[in-house]
């Protein structure tokens, strides 16, 4: 069991390392998938593992991407300093937003997270001097690593792939840890968690902060990847995209959000080249998924494998 898992992880790492062989276009596409996969995994920690239906997760992704870009463009900070600053600020913002939102649960929680994230969006639109508003902020210079500029596609890809591997490893550890067990317990039965002695509110907030911090990490990598941000990355549509990625792939699994992100982005590029109104298609697929495949694509695979093992 342990051995097989190690082998699988080794193969996955090798595959990630080999991606640049497929050319710049493919590597760029996969880099984008990996950036958003981190974002989706961070949301899955909330939705799939803690049972917190956050509808405003883009706030923490976008905030960090802005922090990295703004520090770089306006203050000349290297992205390597911007990245930890972005993660820290996203986690701090998640602590503040979470502090208020966890006072309610279920559907009011969902509405509140959505409302707060819209505040971030509005600020980015209005505060033009700093954020560039809807026009966006250009002029971010990608940092260099060991003398290799991230402007080089292959270097950029490896930095993002390493970031993905790190985030995946970290979230996996968290979920398998005693802290993660508490998150899962809250998802399963919040009232019982209280009755056996857990201060549930505190742990919801911790989950929210970790989720926000990891979303910030993905946002910082996005700033590296794109070298340009606009208020679009704080728009609620991005929060919505992340929810689709998680649900489509399978909430409450590690691989699900990654698979969901890949499906979502490939669908987006494929459909939008043929049909302008691709949200219509994505919305339809999502509705069908909620109705007929609530466990998601990866959830189905897990079920089938389990069923096959039993026979």
């Amino acid at each position, binding site marked *: 069991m342990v051995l097989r898992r190690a082998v699988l992880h080794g193969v996955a790492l090798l595959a990630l390392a080999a991606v640049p062989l497929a050319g710049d276009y493919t590597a760029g596409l996969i880099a984008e998938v990996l950036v958003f996969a981190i974002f989706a995994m961070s949301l899955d920690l909330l939705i799939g593992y803690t049972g917190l*239906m956050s*509808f405003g997760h883009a706030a923490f992704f976008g905030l960090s991407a802005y922090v990295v870009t703004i520090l770089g463009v306006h203050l000349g900070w290297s992205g390597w300093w911007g990245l930890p600053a972005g993660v820290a600020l996203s986690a701090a913002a998640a602590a503040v937003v979470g502090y*208020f939102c966890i*006072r*309610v649960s*279920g*559907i*009011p929680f*969902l*509405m*509140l997270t*959505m*409302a*707060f994230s*819209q*505040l971030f969006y*509005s*600020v980015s639109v*209005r505060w033009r001097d700093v954020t560039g508003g809807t026009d966006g902020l250009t002029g971010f210079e990608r940092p260099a690593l060991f003398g290799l500029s991230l402007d080089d596609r292959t270097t950029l890809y490896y930095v993002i792939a390493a970031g993905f591997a790190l985030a995946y490893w970290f979230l996996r550890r968290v979920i398998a840890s005693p802290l993660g067990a508490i998150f899962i317990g809250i998802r399963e039965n919040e009232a019982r968690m209280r009755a056996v002695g857990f201060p549930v509110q505190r742990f919801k907030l911790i989950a929210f902060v970790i989720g926000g911090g990891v979303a910030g990490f993905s946002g910082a990598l996005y700033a590296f990847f794109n070298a340009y941000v606009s208020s679009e990355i704080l728009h*609620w549509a991005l929060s*919505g995209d992340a*929810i689709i990625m998680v*649900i489509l792939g399978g909430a409450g699994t590690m691989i699900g959000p990654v698979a969901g992100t890949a499906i979502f982005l490939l669908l987006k590029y494929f459909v939008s080249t043929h049909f*302008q*109104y*691709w*949200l*219509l298609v*994505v*919305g*339809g697929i*999502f*509705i069908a998924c*909620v*109705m007929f495949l*609530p466990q998601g694509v990866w959830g189905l695979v897990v079920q089938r494998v389990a069923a096959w093992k039993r026979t």
Partner: protein
Amino acid sequence: MQIVAIQLFNGLVYGMLLFLMSAGLSLIFGLMNVVNISHGSFFMLGAFVAVAVAQATGSFWVALAVAWIPAVALGAVVERVFLRTLYARGHLDQVLLTFGFTFVFTDLVRWIWGPDFRSLDVPAALQGAVEIAGALFPIYRLFLVGFGAAVALGLWLFLDRSRLGAMVRAAVDDSATAAGLGINVSLLFAGVFALGVGLAALGGAVAAPVLGVYSGLDIDILIPSFIVVVIGGTGSLRGAFIASLFVGLIDTLGKAYFPDFALFVVYLLMVVMLLSRPHGLFGIARA
């Protein structure tokens, strides 16, 4: 003094528009425990339909009279064909469904009417302004206040006085018991859902001359409505009404007097509410 009066009045107008949105949101939530994330889409749909009908017929009043029809029809389909099949599952799956529909509606509206900003002219009968104590009040906005108040009164009479309204109230209190009393709760769900989104569409239509008509109107009206529902207390119509006016006034006054912080004013209000009364003005703690 006149300027203050005008600002207060504008706040009242915006509050009435928010009420047309949040009344349905709150009713649907109270009854079905589902927040309809696509509620803003129906508001937007009502606005676009109103513009299209007004262009075709040349009459604002015809537009207003029919703008709710496509929304009610679509709402009934959404509830009967989609939401209903998921009643056996958790409420969250139903919420996710309504969320999926926001994507569908967004692009449907763009496909049919394009991405451009549209506007709806105020009908001739309601153009101009009246002077009250030295301040000018646009007639159309006075009409909006009257319209919102009339809808609020009508809803209250319906819920409080009619037999059907009594059934809705019974089902809001306890749908299992209501079903036991022989009330067709499932049909009631469909009716209230259609009524709620119809009100939203009507709101979009009357709001069109004031707020404009554009893709993205859905989220712009949905977020303040969410704040209204959180402040008013989920599932309470009275809470929705009072909180709508409150949010409308605070938002408008904030924009007039603290333009730099206007964005935060309403959120500040919501945060204070959450810290003092997490279940809202008239909300009941629900499991």
